[in-house]
């Protein structure tokens, strides 16, 4: 005899943003979760297994946080479509756990009033009851449960308080469907919905047994995606919408009011508010962090600390990774007989893998900080502070962090643009973020500045100023293109900013670390495979065809490179490079740097036969390469690396898209090759044209 829940029952977790839904998902599933993407869109899809109080295995789907089922963005459309069982890739949930923030009950219950109308059994979780209690709110749980006809579980998910009670509720075999609040709807709206359901059922878009409210969520709002609905059925939806609009002008607005009226009536019975509201901890912290002086200092200080960690502390693990790969490649060199296969392993595979992993410490650190800022609630404050500046170029405050993160590495920058709801703002942010001077540009800039101005000839401050100028150019370029895209290429109204500033809370480190790792792993898997493949290809291009070497003679690496495909490619593109002042040798460096910018330095060392010696560190190697560059002469005896050439190359590096990881990630995040290739074209095209303009101007002026 079994009285418990049947195994394999599918539960969906829904709730407003910042209600602690993900913390609850982690508490329920532990490590038994699968994180992926919904096919066709880049919205995180999280599923996991959990066990009922009696050990029955249940399935749990964590759906995107939303304020409403009237979808206005792709994530909200996913929420709606999964709940309605419209997505072929996700099983329709059989039961729903609706999480609400107990300290903000009225607003959170709005989504709940929509969810109960779907006709599925619902469990209401009152999360963060500790915060509500400390604010003096008292909630009559039995009365709330009676009023809506659903089990209500008070919880503090971050401390796993109430978890057993929730699991007990989930274990019930007889969870009743909730009392739908259909009577909250104005009568004419209800009548119109019943009629449109019939039309949609006849077209096969909804099943004949669907709740009369199912068409409501299909015909309301400015839905961006109607997943799996064909054009004919879409026309029915549009007609139904137009008809409702004609018959009952402002019907959607009236429905919202009706729902809030029902919530307010319930609150009068259930919620006891304190007579006077006292200043909360959040108020006091905001008084400081959003202050016109202290707020900026705090933001600046925090970012300075973050970038200090990225550029100095992270050196240690980065060097360790580099050293261990160097060690491995040394071991392989000594174990294996010389030959192409050995070179393939050391110069192709290992250098490809290490080229990806070398940036992993930075990427992990950035993901950690982004997670920390999101989890504590500070991220929304950064958007609040920066919105004015970002709105000048047609973006919103939420675009600030992705662009800032891109100064370390564009990969986490582009991935963190996911927090921007508006698809248009998100696309523009992704397109311009890689213009920020990422850390892979740094070694190239250092080399070119060193080659351009002799040490001692100018004060060190001059070099620092040049570096600053290069960083500033990146920021200006990002803002300039954002402005151009938002006003010319992707016109359309900038979406209004509606930003909730959630109460501050202590970060849940385990979830931050888990999210950091899952994002980083996604990068390693996706970008890693592409980069590994291309770095093998690049190795082959710079190895074959081989220059015949007389027996017993050391092969001349520089000549071999010139003879290879890469060398020939350098020669082949020389006519294109000449207008920007570059020769075929630089061409080889530029071709190879399309894998990753920092490769430019190492391939220039190969071309100019600057061999690495034992005990070399990066600085001394760069120093010898710099001296070698200064000695390089054109056939007529004039130096190659004139200041004009260095500037032309710097300009190229400021703009050009030379990073396979970023291309792979942009392709993934925009879900199209179109935007990834558009970005490659506009960035590289601008870099080339401006480099040519700089070189030609210098020639004209006789510099």
């Amino acid at each position, binding site marked *: 005899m079994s009285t418990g829940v049947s195994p394999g029952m599918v539960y969906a977790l829904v709730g407003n943003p910042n209600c602690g839904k993900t913390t609850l998902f982690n508490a329920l599933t532990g490590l038994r979760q699968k994180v992926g993407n919904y096919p066709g869109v880049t919205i995180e899809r999280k599923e996991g297994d959990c066990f009922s109080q009696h050990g029955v295995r249940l399935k749990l789907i964590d759906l995107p946080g939303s*304020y409403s089922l009237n979808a*206005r963005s792709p994530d909200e459309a996913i929420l709606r479509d999964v709940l309605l069982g419209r997505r072929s890739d996700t099983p329709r949930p059989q039961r729903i756990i609706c999480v609400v923030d107990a300290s903000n009950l009225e*607003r959170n219950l*709005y989504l709940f009033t929509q969810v109960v109308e779907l006709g599925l059994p619902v469990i209401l979780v009152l999360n963060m009851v500790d915060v509500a209690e400390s604010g003096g709110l008292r909630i009559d749980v039995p009365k709330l449960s009676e009023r809506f006809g659903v089990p209500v579980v008070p919880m503090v998910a971050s401390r796993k308080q109430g978890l057993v009670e929730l699991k007990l509720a989930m274990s019930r075999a007889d969870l009743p469907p909730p009392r739908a609040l259909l009577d909250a709807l104005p009568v004419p709206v209800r009548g119109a919905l019943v009629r449109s359901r019939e039309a949609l059922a006849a077209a096969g878009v909804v099943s004949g047994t669907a709740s009369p409210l199912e068409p409501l969520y299909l015909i309301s709002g400015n839905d961006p995606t109607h997943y799996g609905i064909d054009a004919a059925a879409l026309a029915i939806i549009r007609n139904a919408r137009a008809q409702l609009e004609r018959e009952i002008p402002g019907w959607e*607005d009236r429905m*919202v009011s009706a729902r809030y009226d029902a919530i307010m009536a319930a609150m009068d019975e259930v919620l006891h508010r304190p007579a006077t509201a006292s200043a909360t901890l959040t108020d006091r912290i905001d008084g400081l962090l959003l202050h016109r002086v202290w707020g900026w200092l705090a933001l600046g200080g925090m970012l300075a600390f973050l970038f200090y960690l990225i550029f100095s502390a992270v050196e240690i693990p980065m060097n360790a990774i580099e050293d261990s790969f160097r060690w491995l490649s040394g071991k392989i060199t000594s174990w294996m007989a010389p030959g192409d296969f050995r070179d393939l392993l050391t110069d192709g595979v290992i250098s490809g893998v290490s080229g990806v992993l070398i940036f992993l410490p930075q990427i992990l650190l950035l993901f950690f900080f982004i997670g920390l800022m999101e989890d504590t609630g500070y991220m929304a404050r950064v958007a609040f502070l920066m919105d*004015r500046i970002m709105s000048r170029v047609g973006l919103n405050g939420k675009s600030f962090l992705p662009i800032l993160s891109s100064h370390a590495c564009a990969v986490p920058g582009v991935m963190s643009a996911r927090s921007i709801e508006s698809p248009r703002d998100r696309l523009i942010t992704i397109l311009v973020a890689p213009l920020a001077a990422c850390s892979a540009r740094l070694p190239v800039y250092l080399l070119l500045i060193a080659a351009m101005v002799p040490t001692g000839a100018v004060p060190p401050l001059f070099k620092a100023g040049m570096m600053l100028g290069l960083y500033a150019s990146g920021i200006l370029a990002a803002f300039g293109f954002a402005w151009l895209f938002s006003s010319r290429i992707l016109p359309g109204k900038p979406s209004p900013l509606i930003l*909730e500033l959630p109460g501050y809370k202590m970060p849940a480190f385990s979830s931050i670390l888990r999210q950091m790792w899952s994002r980083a792993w996604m990068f390693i898997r996706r970008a890693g495979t592409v980069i590994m493949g291309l770095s093998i290809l690049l190795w082959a291009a710079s190895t074959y065809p081989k220059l015949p070497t007389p027996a017993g003679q050391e092969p001349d690496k520089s000549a071999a490179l010139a003879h290879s495909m890469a060398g020939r490619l350098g020669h082949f593109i020389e006519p294109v490079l000449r207008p920007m002042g570059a020769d075929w040798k630089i061409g080889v460096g530029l071709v190879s740097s399309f894998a990753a910018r920092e490769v430019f330095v190492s391939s220039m060392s190969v071309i100019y036969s600057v061999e690495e010696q034992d005990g070399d560190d990066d600085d001394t190697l760069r120093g010898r390469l710099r001296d070698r560059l200064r000695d390089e002469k054109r056939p007529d005896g004039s130096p190659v690396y004139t200041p004009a050439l260095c500037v032309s190359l710097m300009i190229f590096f400021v703009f050009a898209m030379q990073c396979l990881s970023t291309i792979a990630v942009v392709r993934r995040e925009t879900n199209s090759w179109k935007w990834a290739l558009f970005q490659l074209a506009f960035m590289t095209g601008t870099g080339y044209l401006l480099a040519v303009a700089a070189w030609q101007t210098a020639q004209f002026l006789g510099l």
Partner: protein
Amino acid sequence: MEAGTSAVIRTLPEGLPSLARLREMGLLPGTRLTFVRRAPLGDPLEFMVRGALLSLRGTEASLITVEVQP
């Protein structure tokens, strides 16, 4: 409005998509709100509505008429 003053929403234009979401977040005629602060650069504005802190730009906020309450 000065920081710290409370007001009751009188009217919210109907049929504007940019305001539909605000409505769903509980900004309805008759709802009480408190103006908390302006961002240091002057925009956006922060309000306390139904126990939550919400921020919107002046452009959207100016569409809403309110009656200041003592």
